[in-house]
């Protein structure tokens, strides 16, 4: 088998939260020309369905297998994905597009690892920004910005000892994430971590503190939806994996406790 040493390229493309109109012009132009340019694109299922509507000629190789491998946890899978894409681009000489939902810079471990590896090896990396989920979910609350915004992983708060400050509002993301393995896409498991999250938050907030589950209606409209509830009721019902929890500050502006209709 032949060795290929010609230089390739690696581009990470953020495609926004889900709706085609949220894809940036830069990303659209890149996708439109990618198939003709012989680019090799990779992404998960939800990204593939979006690309199918924007650039039907572009084949997106499925990365979903990484979530289904026996005995492979997510950190290991993300590390392997990062190494694989860097290798494909710079050792195999392919023009690689890694297509991700939302913004590449928001809560994406694989992107983080790719960026670090490229930086360490002196590899060029192009980043095409996308709208993050934060813009979309904030649509249903009134965030003033006066006390900042804490963006935290619900998993980290529930299980890793990270505590949001009570002085400013917090957005806890990936609320339905209940496992470090690949089975977390089933929302029925979400109450497991919600119980832990609730108990952690109750250490700092009163039981009646108003919180809001922010989530999407899903395909095809991807409407932003809100489910307000008291903190003590957080674990009473399951939530979608990619939902978020809005936690207003303990003594913050009243408007940040309201839900935008």
């Amino acid at each position: 088998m032949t060795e290929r040493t010609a230089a390739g390229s690696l581009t990470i493309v953020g495609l926004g939260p889900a709706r085609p109109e949220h894809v940036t012009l830069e990303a659209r132009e890149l996708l439109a020309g990618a198939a003709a340019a012989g680019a090799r694109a990779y992404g998960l299922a939800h990204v593939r369905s979006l690309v199918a509507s924007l650039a039907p000629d572009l084949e997106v190789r499925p990365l979903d297998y990484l979530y289904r491998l026996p005995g492979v946890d997510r950190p290991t899978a993300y590390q392997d994905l990062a190494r694989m894409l860097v290798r494909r681009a710079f050792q195999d000489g392919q023009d690689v597009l890694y297509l991700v939902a939302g913004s590449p810079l928001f809560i994406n471990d694989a992107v983080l690892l790719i960026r670090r590896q490229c930086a360490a090896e002196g590899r060029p990396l192009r980043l095409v920004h996308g709208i993050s989920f934060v813009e979309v979910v904030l649509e249903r609350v009134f965030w003033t910005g006066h006390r900042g915004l804490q963006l935290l992983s619900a998993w980290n708060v529930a299980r890793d000892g990270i505590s949001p400050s009570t002085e400013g509002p917090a957005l806890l993301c990936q609320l339905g994430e209940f496992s470090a393995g690949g089975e977390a896409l089933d929302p029925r498991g979400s109450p497991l971590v919600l119980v832990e999250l609730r108990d952690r938050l109750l250490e700092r907030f009163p039981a009646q503190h108003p919180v809001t589950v922010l989530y999407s209606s899903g395909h095809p409209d991807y409407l932003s939806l809100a489910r307000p509830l008291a903190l003590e009721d957080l674990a009473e019902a399951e939530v979608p994996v990619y939902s978020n929890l809005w936690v207003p500050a303990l003594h913050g502006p009243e408007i940040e406790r309201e839900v935008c209709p």
Partner: protein
Amino acid sequence: MTEVLPLGPFPSWGPLRKGGVLDLGAALRDQLLSRRALWGPVRKVLQGRLAHAVEEASWPQAAELLVAWLDTWPVGATVEPAVSEWMSAPSAASLAVLARASELVGLALAWPTQPGTPWPVPPAGWIREQVGEGSVRLLRRGEDEGGGDGAGEDDGEDDGGEDDGGEDDGSETIRAALAGAPEGRLLEEGRAPSLGLPPVLTLTGEALVARRSELARALVQGELGALRLRSPLPPGAAAQLALGELRMEGPHQRAFERYGRVGLRVDGLVEWQEILTEAPGGEDGPVLQATAEGVLTPGTPGRLARGEPETIGWLVWDAAFLPVPVLPVAVQVLRALDGERGLDQVAAEVGVVASVVAPVLDQLVALGAATAA
């Protein structure tokens, strides 16, 4: 002297005869993978075996036979278009249809299959019947046809062969069949024309992990068609991740693992169940005609597997639609739809009051089993 091509890779995509050469794989394909075979003898044999399995209380076998019997409708409806597609513009979907058809035929005939595949291996008598009298020259598939990939350079782990990949082309079966013939016919052997399939590399599970980067590059660049493991993967995440990457990057890999060398002709893998869809609803009207067939069975696969038989109706179509379980009365009603009877006449024919038949008709229309005449 009869010149013959071997049985594999099966299903053949060549003509039955070309330049005086008989393609045994094509003969097997044409005789078994046809609507006539599936809707006729295969269905009949499966029905008989299903009844016998129920009588014998062989419940797991009965459940398998019921699924197979019901599948003879959609498979029979799609097998001949699939054969045509397979011969001219092969797709993963056409291969899935041929695979399911082969499974049904194999189940009915009780023929063995090529190891790890659904492809049937015919008995000696069938082979002798095809080649007829006289001596035979067997044109074997070459191990290096289609060009090498340089893989043979690698410390003897690779077979270096294009589409051999360690897979039997059926020559041994033919040789054994003819050697056992009463006249003890002597075989000559020659070389078959190249099939032009991409090369396959055979290696150990450990080598797959150790050579992951090199193998992935070869798959990406089209230098390799697929990989065949001659030993299990070693335990651990590294092996799973390596195999995951190679399956993802090799467009033929999963079909090759599932179907053997013929998988090298298609990109991706489609399973039979992915091909079936729900039938579209019909149009309501005062007079209805049947667009499906209603059959009565000793249960659903689940109930049979649990040893709980009961009479269940099924709606089946002459199309790639999912069979639908229904109450037995729905089968009676469906059979009464002749495109001329109205509600009252259908009710009289079935012997049930019209108020019971009306909702059944609504359901049959909604399920796409009946439509306005």
